[in-house]
């Protein structure tokens, strides 16, 4: 729904009641539309994240699943403003050493661990011979997955103090690759 409330999300509410309506604020600084009563709000995406938003929507859906849920993101000046703010935040955070170390770095370590864990699970549940491991490499991380035929995937994310021109590359090779050391 835009700031004028002009689209069709209100139609299920006219039939089923307003309890099915959930408003989501995308950030904590933008004002909410004047027509939106405080008592009808809502959910703060910035604080609680997408996963919690999904939980809030499910919570409002009755067990019989018959009632539609209208989850509406409020964006007073239209979606373009949210996108600009997001891009500005991204540029700022990707150059912020503290954010890179405290948020990006653990997220990439988590990704490497999950890849290795899932490769190990496949190996244990099938007859596929898969070797896997990850390590610090050139300031970022790389993860190696090897199959029995000596072909391998290399997943590598290289970054140092800032996330600038960073890519996560998943490269296929025709031969064995080696890790230099142990993962931290």
């Amino acid at each position, binding site marked *: 729904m835009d700031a004028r409330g002009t689209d069709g999300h209100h139609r299920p509410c006219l039939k089923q009641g307003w309890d099915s309506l959930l408003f989501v604020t995308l950030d904590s600084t933008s004002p909410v539309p004047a027509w939106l009563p405080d008592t009808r709000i809502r959910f703060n995406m910035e604080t609680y994240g997408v996963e919690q938003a999904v939980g809030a929507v499910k919570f409002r859906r009755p067990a019989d699943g018959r009632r539609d849920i209208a989850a509406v993101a409020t964006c007073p000046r239209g979606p373009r403003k949210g996108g600009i703010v997001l891009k500005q935040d991204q540029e700022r*955070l990707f150059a912020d050493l503290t954010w890179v170390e405290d948020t990006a770095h653990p997220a990439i370590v988590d*990704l490497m661990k*999950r890849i290795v864990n899932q490769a190990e699970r496949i190996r244990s549940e099938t007859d596929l011979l898969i070797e896997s491991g990850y390590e610090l490499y050139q300031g970022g991380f790389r993860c190696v*997955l090897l199959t029995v035929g*000596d072909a391998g*995937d290399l997943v590598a994310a290289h970054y140092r103090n800032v996330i600038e021109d960073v*890519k996560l590359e998943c490269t296929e090779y*025709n*031969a064995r690759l080696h890790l230099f050391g142990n993962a931290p």
Partner: protein
Amino acid sequence: MVREPQSLGRKSYRPALNFARELRWVDAAKRDQLLSNDDMVQRVLDQLLALLERLNQGKIPRYEY
């Protein structure tokens, strides 16, 4: 003689933030979707299994040591 392994293919992803300012990934070749770590794990393993399938079908020349 030591030879470098030959690269057979590559998929690239770039970091991005979602509205909750969480780190996500965007497929460099198809930028319409934010991918979570769960999505990335699935994609990486799918890529590995596809590589293995090609290897088993003889579509990838064996490395000569």
